[in-house]
């Protein structure tokens, strides 16, 4: 029993963590969410989960965004929270980080669908079933997400950088 959980953990943990960091940008929150997802999977029971990797992604994603909402509330209490600045010339060293940064400017659902589609390689049908949205909505969400990335005028340039 413990062996199969270990195998699942060792197979999925790093991938899940990367996906969550990409979506949220906060490595600590990502780790919390990933750990929580595994605990929830254990509570749920492996036999009731058809695709554990995808299940963990969806569960952890919801956990992550829940955590972000809480953080947002807390941060509003910070009196001196600085505004985010941007500086194009500054980002020479971080093409990939900026691509991820652009990703994080998308609405949460779009982020999750993009990661599920391109990083986890899930089909439209699988995404629709796991995230409980209509299949047509998956395509529309993806289209909107990618269009927005282009509209940010960094997607094309940075994607070429990221392919290097």
């Amino acid at each position, binding site marked *: 029993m413990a062996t199969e*959980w*270990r195998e699942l*953990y*060792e197979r999925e*943990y*790093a991938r899940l*963590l*990367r*996906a969550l*960091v*990409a979506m949220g*940008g*906060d*490595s*600590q929150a990502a*780790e*919390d969410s990933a*750990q929580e997802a*595994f*605990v*929830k999977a*254990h*509570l*749920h029971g492996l036999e009731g989960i058809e695709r554990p990797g995808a*299940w963990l992604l*969806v569960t952890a994603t*919801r956990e992550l*965004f*829940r955590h972000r*909402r*809480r953080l947002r509330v*807390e941060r509003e*209490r*910070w009196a*001196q929270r*600085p505004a*985010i*600045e941007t*500086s194009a010339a*500054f*980002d*020479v*060293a971080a093409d*990939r*980080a900026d*691509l*991820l940064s652009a990703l994080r400017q998308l609405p949460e659902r779009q982020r999750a669908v*993009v*990661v599920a*589609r*391109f*990083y986890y390689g899930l089909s439209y049908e699988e995404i629709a079933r796991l*995230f*409980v949205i209509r299949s047509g909505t998956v395509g529309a969400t*993806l289209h909107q997400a*990618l269009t927005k*990335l282009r509209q940010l005028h960094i997607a094309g340039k940075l*994607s070429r950088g*990221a*392919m290097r």
Partner: protein
Amino acid sequence: MSDEIEHEDGILGTALSRAVESQPVRETPFEGSRLAERLVHPRRSFAVPALAAAAAVVLGLTLGGALLAGRGSQPGPVATEPMPTLAPTPQVAFLTPAPTPVAPSVLRPTIYAAREDLPPVGVQIGDLSGTRVAQDRIGARLTMLRAWRPRDVPIGSTNLLWNNSFQGGVRVNIEGDLAKIDLLIEQPWTVTKPSDDLGILQQLVYTATEERGIRRVLFTANGQPLSIGTRLVDRALSREDVFGYSQAGRIGTVRGFGSRQAQQRTATTALSVDEVVPGLARFVVTLDQRGIGPSDPYPDWDVTLVRNDESLRPDFGKWRLVVRVYGVLDRTTVARRLDQSPVRVIEETSLAGPQSPTPDAPIIYQIGLDDARPWRTAMLFDPVRILVDIGGPPQTIAANTAVYGPRPGQTVSRMFAISGVASAFEAHVSWRVRDGSGRIVSSFGTTATNCCEPGGVFETIAGVPESVVGRATLEVFQASGRDGGPVELIAIPLEIRPTGGIAAAPRPAQPLFSPTRGPYRTQAEAIRAATYLVRGPIDRQEAQFTSFARLAKEHGVRTYQIDPDREIYVVFVGAPIEAPHPCRSFVKVIDASDGIDRGTLCGDGPWPGFR
């Protein structure tokens, strides 16, 4: 969708996928995961007092709104995942004790000095009253580093940025918990020895992430990747990426299973930093309980490392180590600001109130920390003590073993003390010494004061033959449960002195003091008493697990009763003593045929038949 757009989407998606995959992540090993914890202790609940449970309910309700708002009407995996229960996670429970406030010193900036082969140390200095936003504060702290004169830096540390390449000029850009910092650099960094590049980077990363809410920092120089010596900085770094340890401290809980019975015990605490060994903070909870037996169990306790939410408690720093001890009172409940790196503050909170201990209301010690450096626990007895060791020299620390002595590069005599803390199977820690050619010249094992988790301290005296001088390597390790091979091997380079030890000392025909005359009046008397000599080889396992009386009889060895009621320092004649041993009775086994230390036995009482 046209083919062209679909193709472009595919390229963009691939780029995104590669960007996601390229992110460095710190993978918590399975053993340190919450899942593993749950598998090991499936029924053990995190029992918390009513106050904690109530707070958890409030927190749950607070989060519930956001949770429901986020979920909308989505079923699917969320619908099938279990509903949040009221059994709180440790993190929730630890938010609940009413804190004793310590005035946060947001205007007194902490900047960090470098220490060779150790994490940097923070020092409060200067004034940030002119800064209003995080970017300015980060910039001001980094600029202070440049101007921090070496004579003002704490003893044992240095400021590698003094009069170095960076002369000021900082652009700071913040995104979430990430600070992107561009330094204006006019010439390459001056690095006089190999460890300087890490030292500079540690100072920069620790000082920049001192700002609350900032956990990672991406440094560039003049808009280009930052290069320090041979080190290229090409990614965002957290403190844990540069602190020098091979792995971060366990994010989770270590439990010292005891009894929840209220015993009306009183606890006192002590903290030392850099006293046991450089870079180590040791927090000790001592109970007024001497010895343990079936009718007098030691209390239940646990220690957990959690991230600190700086928006709520900025004074705690980035991490908190939470020590809970049940059924005790500490009448000195206070919040103490220490700022002695890595400890920021210690806060003591009793959920039992000031009157008397209750079984399920722990006293909670919260230790604010600079970083998540490795930590470990140990139990000692008579009196019962709970040790929490934080950090230590990175070169001599493995996941479940830490060696505090001897130090790497130390010159030792042929007989030298090995000490440390281990969480080991059957409390067994093995050691061996290799000479300059790599040949094993002596080996044996020792026993820690407590088995497995939560661990114990160990101390033994190792010896090598007279022929071994000069370069040598001490290896301390645990035996693999799979094949018995060494795991968690810590290699410590040493220099063996050609003189001293048994070889140089005249071997007495009789012990200088008869061990039977104890108790010893002074430590010096005990040191000079040779207590137990064994002639002929001793099987390693026998020495550890077989009655000494039988061994002594088989080998025709004289044995002596040593005083069981005192901590006794027992060594072979001529060997130095450097630290007290926690065992009540302590027996050394010296093979008189070659003078090599065959190990140490540690017990809670006199060994049977020991006369």
